[in-house]
């Protein structure tokens, strides 16, 4: 299990959470937001990239 998690997510605790948050927000708000949902989705994933660089170096 640990090996599979390392293989898929590189042991990151931040990236699965960031992806899940981006997908959940888009699923909830895509109809009411229209095209800004694109920016929110990409923005959360970009923020996740920044956040994951703060994790311990492996």
């Amino acid at each position, binding site marked *: 299990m640990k090996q599979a998690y390392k293989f*898929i997510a*590189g042991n*990151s605790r931040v990236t699965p959470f960031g992806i899940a948050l981006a997908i959940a927000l*888009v699923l909830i708000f895509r109809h009411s937001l229209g*095209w800004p949902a*694109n920016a929110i989705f*990409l923005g959360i*994933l970009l923020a996740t990239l920044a956040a994951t660089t703060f994790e311990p*170096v492996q």
Partner: protein
Amino acid sequence: MNGWVAAGTTFLASGLEFVEAATIVLAVGYTAGWRVALRGAAWAIAVLAVITGLLGPALVYWVPLNDLKIAIGVFLTLFGYTWLRKAIWRYSGRKAMRDEEAAFNAEIADLRKHEQHYAFATAFNGVLLEGLEVAVIVITFSAARAGTFLWAVVGALAACAIVTAAAALLRRPFSRVPENAMGFIVGIMLLSFGTFWSGEGVGLHWWAGEGTLPWIVGAYLAAALLLIAAWKRAVRA
């Protein structure tokens, strides 16, 4: 999606993984003999071929396209984060640059401590684990867009052929391959495709359809360069 982009991305990603696998096989060959090294590599390639041949068509035929796009997008995004984060750490000085010569020497030192059967397991595991990532990338690229399977496979096979031929000719680790730069580019491409497909899967209508992809690539490239600069400053301070 342009077939050349799929082929180029799988070529770079596969090239990097094959270089790492070749380093392990070369180390096993020098310490335990070429027969056991090539036997381990051949078994791993056979297992990988079965996985790719079974999993690829099964995914395409049995999983609904939108669910497939979300799953594929999430996989590629996670892979992309791992590759790009490592590249950012390396370029900012937080992690040592990948050095195939050092990896080769460490592998040889480890092999000398163990029995002969350990050599087979090392060659087999090395090729299987490095190749598994290639298999996942090829399968996901082909499953997300019809018509990209051949391009993705051609990219991976071309990388395999070049690395294998170079390893057979040189018989030493590839210290001159720009692995760190390749890892940076692959990280950006995987992350961009992952973002695009997972977005489509959850029902997003991208601004310019497939024309949005270069903008996503540009956004990740700019973010990565900014992060490298910021971390470089933090490391120096």
